[in-house]
């Protein structure tokens, strides 16, 4: 065997590719991750590191179920990563809050969660609606402008940079091969194998998994699939480290284990522009300090932007190619929340080479092949 031949090649070394790689390598170590270089868009380095359930599943109850299942296995997953690699990914699940800065915002939030819960096939997602007084009992730091909020016990957070590092370390401890700076230019399927041409030569594999984030839209048609994803820009703010003041993650504000306060969750259509903008950052900072007035004193030390990998309906796409057996694709904006599912459910399924899986039919991009009603 030449050293550029693998049973399975994964295109993409972000959270999705690394989680799938970790899971596959635990049973089939002749697997490679082909990653881009430092110029990659790299959604995994821009995310907010929430493990989040409340609000998920609108329009796709199976996605709500898939999300809940992943959140419920996160703790054991984090423990097994730490046992294997020694890396603590700082997973905590105290439950999480979504805060509203007006009664109208709170009403919209409650209606939204009720609509999601009312869908046929939707699992029961715990949430409580808290008025100002009830909220002040649990989160005494909130300011007077906070009208109320919702709380779900399922929600939590972690350190996503440590998660990415742990998955990469664990993947290589399992025997997987990581190749940096291997951007895949084209893929050819011939004589039962895949040939991937990269800027560092050709790599051959019996099966491939496309986990290339936004680049899946370019790569998937080369192997008979369609993975329509578009970029949604998110901007983030990091403050200087401060003493612990927030024990729970809030959907737009959280404090890391080391003390940094992160402010995030903006959503914009900005094409492939990864620049941050002062107007959006200012709006985010303004909302955050109205939620927690004491934040106003903190210095901002960094702000940046990244592009989410968004399927049209905001859920996830998992695909197995009919025309090129052995080609799979995965695309989602929830690489942190869904990491255990990718590693422990999706990866074994791919490692066994199962092409048709009822379990994943709800996530096929074929769901988009429906004519729009006039």
């Amino acid at each position, binding site marked *: 065997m030449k050293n550029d031949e693998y049973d399975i090649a994964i295109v993409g070394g972000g959270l999705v590719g690394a989680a799938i790689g970790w899971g596959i390598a635990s049973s089939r170590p002749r697997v490679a991750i082909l990653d881009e270089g430092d110029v990659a868009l790299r959604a995994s380095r821009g995310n907010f590191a929430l493990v989040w359930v409340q609000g998920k599943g609108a329009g796709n109850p199976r996605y709500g179920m898939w999300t809940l299942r992943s959140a419920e296995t996160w703790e054991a997953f984090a423990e097994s990563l730490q046992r294997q690699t020694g890396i603590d990914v700082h997973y905590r699940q105290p439950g999480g809050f979504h805060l509203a800065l007006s009664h109208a915002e709170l009403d919209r939030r409650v209606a939204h969660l009720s609509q999601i819960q009312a869908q046929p096939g939707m699992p029961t997602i715990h949430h409580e609606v808290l008025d100002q007084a009830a909220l002040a009992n649990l989160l005494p730091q909130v300011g007077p402008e906070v009208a109320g909020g919702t709380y779900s016990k399922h929600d939590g957070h972690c350190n996503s940079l440590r998660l990415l590092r742990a998955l990469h370390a664990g993947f290589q401890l399992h025997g997987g091969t990581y190749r940096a700076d291997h951007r895949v230019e084209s893929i050819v399927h011939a004589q039962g194998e895949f040939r991937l041409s990269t800027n560092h030569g050709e790599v051959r594999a019996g099966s491939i998994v496309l986990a290339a984030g936004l680049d899946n839209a370019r790569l998937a048609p080369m192997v008979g699939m369609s993975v329509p994803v578009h970029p949604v820009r998110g901007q983030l703010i990091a403050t*200087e*480290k401060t*003493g612990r003041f927030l024990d729970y993650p809030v959907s737009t504000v959280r404090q890391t284990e080391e003390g940094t306060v992160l402010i995030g969750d903006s959503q914009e259509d900005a094409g492939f522009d990864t620049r941050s903008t002062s107007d959006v950052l200012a709006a985010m900072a303004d909302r955050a300090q109205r939620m927690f007035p*004491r934040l106003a004193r903190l210095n901002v030390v960094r702000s940046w932007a990244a592009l989410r990998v968004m399927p049209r309906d905001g859920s996830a796409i998992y695909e197995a190619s009919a025309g090129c057996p052995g080609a799979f694709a995965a695309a989602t904006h929830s690489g942190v929340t869904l990491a255990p599912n990718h590693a422990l459910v999706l990866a074994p399924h791919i490692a066994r080479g199962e092409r048709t899986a009822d379990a994943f039919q709800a996530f096929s991009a074929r769901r988009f092949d429906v004519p729009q009603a006039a």
Partner: protein
Amino acid sequence: MFRRLRDDAERVSISVDGRRVDAAAGESVAAALLAEGIERTHASEVRGEPRGPYCAIGACFDCLVTIDGVGNRRACMVEVAPGMSVETQGSKRELTR
């Protein structure tokens, strides 16, 4: 131990951890602290190790102190002023200051 190259400047009285210190007009808080023999300004945020002025040009964030009640100011980037209150810090800046 640090000493000033020239020591003919006008004196500016500041307080450091409640104690009166005579600084030289025009110098930074970091210079005044070093001249006074105070080399530990705060402790690192995660491991709590002692830290003090290092780069003296605003880049390293190792000389953080609380100035007039505001935490995490870089001592090397702030000029001494009459009556200024400087406090060395524990570890992370507390949100109340």
